[in-house]
């Protein structure tokens, strides 16, 4: 069964690449060249790796904003709101409080951004638990509200009057900004993302709190019967997820933009939804899936420049890949051995590798 865990998505990915090869071939490009460029662009050398990892960093955090509430049984899709408000909070805090110009100041910024993100997503959780409002809709609408608040403040009271044509808040002091890791372009947001994914993954699997959360997600009525505080646990899951997205926004401000401006609204929160679903809401799986996502972005960049393909072609590849990965889930419960006995000559389903290939792929 373990072989299937890794084998199915890998086989689906391979099938997607094969289909994409056919797609570009129809458009007149060489599939072989396309595959080479895709690999080179995403994982070919140190630059490509930096490119991929940097694109992956914010997605790990925003995916957690979907995955954690999902483990508690909620479908939250408004992470974008927590991202922009987390970023705004980090940029706004120095307006109100003088911060020490060192790592402690940066830590306070991050904590504040996380708190604001946590509070925002917790609203969606509370609306559901106490007022019966569908959390999927409310979190999405809250994201629009957050973006409106963000713009109102950035273009109004918090605007740095020197920013004429691109309204922004004042820049963070240099001492508060987050730098790259060991001279590379990859900033500490990646470390935050990996630590958060692994930490929260361990918490879910190995602690009573994590277990209780999964029980609530599995069957809230059972959870209440055995005396688990379902409401509190659900709010906790929302707050934890929101704090991750808030941190993503804070890191974008402190490591990239240095201030809050409209460039922060880049859709990281929405991309995180896809990452979380592909990772089947498993925090550990979010890390490789986010890297795969980052890889698509990096590879797409090179593909555009080398072959002159439009950006849409990369989205086609992403689309094929994720549809196949999700569709391959349907094969999870299949008893391959029994199938083999009943239909000895059953042809392999198009695009899905036969079981032998699956197990060998995962062994490699």
């Amino acid at each position, binding site marked *: 069964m373990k072989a299937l865990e890794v084998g199915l998505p890998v086989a689906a990915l391979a099938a997607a690449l094969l289909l994409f090869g056919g797609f570009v071939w129809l458009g007149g490009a060489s599939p072989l060249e396309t595959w080479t460029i895709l690999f080179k662009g995403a994982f070919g050398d140190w630059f490509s790796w930096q490119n991929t990892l940097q694109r992956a960093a914010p997605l790990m955090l925003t995916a957690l904003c979907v995955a954690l509430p999902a483990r508690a049984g909620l479908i939250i899709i408004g992470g974008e709101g927590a991202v922009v408000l987390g970023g705004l909070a980090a940029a706004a805090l120095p307006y109100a409080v003088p911060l020490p110009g060192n790592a402690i100041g940066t830590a306070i910024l991050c904590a504040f951004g996380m708190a604001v993100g946590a509070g925002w997503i917790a609203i969606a959780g509370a609306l559901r638990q106490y007022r019966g409002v569908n959390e999927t809709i409310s979190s999405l609408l809250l994201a629009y509200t957050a973006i409106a608040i963000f713009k109102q403040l950035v273009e109004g009271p918090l605007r740095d009057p020197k920013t004429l044509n691109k309204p922004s808040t004042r820049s963070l002091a240099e001492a508060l900004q987050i730098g790259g890791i060991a001279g590379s372009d990859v900033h500490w947001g990646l470390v935050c993302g990996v630590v958060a994914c692994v930490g929260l993954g361990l918490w879910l699997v190995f602690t009573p709190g994590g277990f209780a959360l999964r029980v609530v997600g599995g069957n809230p009525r059972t959870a209440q019967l055995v005396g688990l505080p379902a409401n509190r646990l659900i709010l906790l899951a929302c707050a934890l997820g929101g704090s991750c997205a808030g941190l993503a926004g804070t890191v974008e401000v402190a490591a990239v933009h240095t201030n809050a401006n409209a460039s922060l609204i880049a859709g990281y929160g929405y991309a995180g939804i896809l990452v979380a679903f592909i990772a089947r809401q498993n925090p550990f799986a979010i890390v490789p899936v986010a890297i795969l996502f980052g890889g698509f972005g990096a590879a797409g960049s090179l593909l555009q420049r080398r072959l002159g393909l*439009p950006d849409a072609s990369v989205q086609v590849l992403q689309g094929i890949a994720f549809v196949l990965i999700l569709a391959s889930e349907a094969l999870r419960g299949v008893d391959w051995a029994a199938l083999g006995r009943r239909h000895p000559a059953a042809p392999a389903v198009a695009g899905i590798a036969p079981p032998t290939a699956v197990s060998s792929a995962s062994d490699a």
Partner: protein
Amino acid sequence: MTDRPHDSSRRRALAQLSAGSLASLAPWAMHPAFAQAKSLTVGVVYVGPRDDFGYNQAQAQAAAEVKKMPGIKVVEEENVPETTAVQKTMTGMIQQDGAKVLFPTSFGYFDPHVLVLAPKFPDVRFSHCGGLWTEKNPKNAGSYFGYVEECQYLNGVVAGHMSKSKKLGFVAAKPIPQVLKNINAFTMGARSVDPKITTTVIFTGEWSMPVKEAEATNSLADQGVDVFTMHVDGPKVVVETAAKRGKMVCGYHASQAKLAPNAYLTGAEWNWLTAYKTVIEAAQSGKPHPNFLRGGLKEGYVKMSPYGPMVSEAARKNADDVKAKMLADTFDIFAGGSAGLKDNKGATVIGAGKTIKQTDVELEKMNYLVEGVVGSA
């Protein structure tokens, strides 16, 4: 934007171009890569799709012309957000494709992204669209922009002649100086024809938000507006919606004539090839990087779309006359005239007899809408 008058910096940049001897003063200009540059790779980065009938298409049209120049290879990437993604794209163009000249064309690419990369790659020339470069910025970075408000003024003149309801509509993205300048120029052009004309403006709040742009156009049409123009990244939606409602439009960024041949009066277009060529030729010949490039109709940075067949003789003649004055440098849009220029709240913003040249940095801080504009900045 810059704390010096544009006037002097522009002249200085142009002077640098002609005075090649100054090149030896800049150490990076001596770099062998420039001295013996035969084949040159140029990278162009767009924030949206290349075929958006608007901002990005105007840049892509220039890039397509650059491709035809001998010894030039162009690499392009579209839909690049203003995040670290654009830093990665530019670094990729430099390291993977060997680009020596980059045109990051979106306003938000400059700070922090170009400013972060320029010091890291001192032998690469960054030419950013938006006019933000100042003396404090790296010498291998620079910016180019055009006085497109000249064309919006001419749009206004044509619209003023063609409008029957005397109500014009402007669908705008954000109330920032660049946009306000266009709204004001358009309105002043129209009111030079008939002072009774008003322009109603709706801000969508986003550079690209097709749904709101369509809503704004429909709402303005319902209010009796019969000529539209816009300042959003992709004017396609406004043009098509207005045409569908049987109204007329003046285009922006690129020509949208193809989208609505029977409604398209004329349009304010960029002509970025002028800037691209100046930057590339300097790179090829090893001259210093032109840091600050600006120009209007006269310098060939902007141009008008050809008049549509429905534009009246009187409108053509009036617009052509003003254009001739602009080309002769004897016309200033933002002038107080005999009574002073008022904003739409009644305050005088430019005193009687006072004239602000288009190169004046004061215009970059514009925060008002002139008399005749319905709406608030």
